[in-house]
């Protein structure tokens, strides 16, 4: 079974992926920070039972977080199946996810349940529809805490209302190079959105997401996010044309491809710099034999904890860098400049 990130998505030149997350809670149990051991178990069992009645029940895998090693738990966060906060405390927490890792439910984290749908490119509407269907099916047996005026009741009053976060992961190397990202991030806050750098400036990957959850419907929030993201994307495309017209940009792309193909030791920071340049090169038609989704799949595979889990043994920093270099140079054999 292919993972969700191995598939090509719409608008993938600038949109790596999208996600929709719904926070839900039980009316009759304390919220997670006040749950007893038996409450935590009751909550997990309820979700397990309710999920078994859903249409894709057979496709879900169940993970009890306290049975995971630290690397396994961090790898889940690296693969975006959960947040760093979720793995900071594993006791009583559980994770359900489909074999393609696109649909998942975290249990007993910041809320009793958080449904998350991840898709490549901009498929926000499809992600929202899938999240909504799963929520509706679960609600038939779980009866989520809800008030007409406040919407879905959540542990943090910040999430009241829809309990929904919709996000787009954007690749914005040209705007990053122009030094515009700080200003864009600041401007978006005033509009009820958040833009955050995910892997540092070398990668130029940002997540843009909504912040307002009360007084707006899920569909409206997604439409607003898409409309504003479209403007940022237009700006990136224009800046990218300008960037690609400079001879040194094409030289950098050639240089970074050569680095990835020949490196024996590859620190993560160097990888992200190369990744960003090569991704631009793919869409500019400068690279043959490598698709954006293959490169994005590599990006997930070479993150430290995921490398460690794949290796089946603990790797120190140097071993990680060596293994990363080996994996990438093998994957990029046959990739050529046009």
């Amino acid at each position, binding site marked *: 079974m292919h993972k969700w990130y191995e598939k090509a998505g719409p608008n993938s030149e600038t949109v790596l992926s999208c996600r929709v997350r719904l926070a839900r809670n039980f009316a009759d149990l304390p919220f997670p920070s006040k749950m007893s051991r038996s409450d935590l178990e009751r909550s997990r069992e309820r979700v397990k039972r309710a999920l078994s009645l859903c249409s894709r029940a057979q496709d879900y895998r169940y993970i009890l977080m306290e049975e995971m090693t630290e690397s396994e738990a961090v790898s889940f966060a690296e693969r975006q199946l959960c947040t760093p906060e979720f793995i900071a405390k594993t006791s009583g927490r559980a994770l359900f996810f489909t074999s393609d890792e696109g649909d998942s439910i975290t249990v007993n984290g910041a809320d009793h349940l958080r449904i998350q749908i991840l898709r490549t490119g901009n498929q926000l509407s499809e992600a929202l529809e899938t999240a909504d269907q799963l929520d509706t099916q679960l609600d038939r047996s779980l009866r989520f805490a809800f008030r007409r005026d406040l919407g879905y009741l959540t542990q943090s009053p910040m999430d009241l209302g829809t309990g929904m976060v919709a996000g787009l992961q954007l690749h914005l190397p040209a705007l990053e190079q122009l030094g515009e990202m700080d200003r864009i991030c600041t401007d978006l806050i005033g509009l009820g959105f958040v833009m955050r750098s995910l892997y540092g400036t070398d990668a130029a990957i940002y997540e843009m997401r909504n912040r307002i959850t009360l007084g707006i419907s899920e569909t409206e929030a997604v439409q607003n996010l898409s*409309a504003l993201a479209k403007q940022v994307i237009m700006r990136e495309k224009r800046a990218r044309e300008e960037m690609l017209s400079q001879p040194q940009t094409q030289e950098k792309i050639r240089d970074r491809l050569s680095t990835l193909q020949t490196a024996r030791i590859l620190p993560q920071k160097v990888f992200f710099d190369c990744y960003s340049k090569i991704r631009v090169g793919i869409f500019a038609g400068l690279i043959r034999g490598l698709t954006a989704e293959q490169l994005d799949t590599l990006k997930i595979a070479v993150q430290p904890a995921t490398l460690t889990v794949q290796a089946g043994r603990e790797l120190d920093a140097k071993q990680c860098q060596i293994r990363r270099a080996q994996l990438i140079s093998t994957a990029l054999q046959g990739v050529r400049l046009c």
Partner: protein
Amino acid sequence: MLCQSCGEQTATMRIKEIVNGRLTEYAICASCARRLGYNTLLSGLGRGYGSMLSEFFGDQPPEPEKRCPQCGASFEEIARTGRVGCALCYETFEEELMPLIQRLHGNELHCGKFPGENLPQPRLQSQMIPMREMLEKAIREGNKNLLKGGESDA
């Protein structure tokens, strides 16, 4: 504790990140949280939330002895942690929580999905009109502000 990002302001918020395959925790100030995209209206739940509450209620939390019959939480505990104890707390501490919820969300009412129902269709007359107008204005004016240097296709 000083902010681990700017080293100048007092840290009011703890964030967790994955750095080189390890879970790492940082203490940052509210302005760095905003700059780094961690901003929430409640940034710095402990301190920020408490100081926000004290603006409403002074230093004395109201009815400190009142506790939620379902989870046992007191309002002081909710204010200190920024976490509501259970769904019933929203009823038990309605009087105390509503000013805060209004401060966070304005006078908005839920207009999204209801349990068991389909997603509502976008409504032109929704309560999001002021927000939508602001958003559309930003998109229109994006050429000189957010989108400096390019033409809008909106």
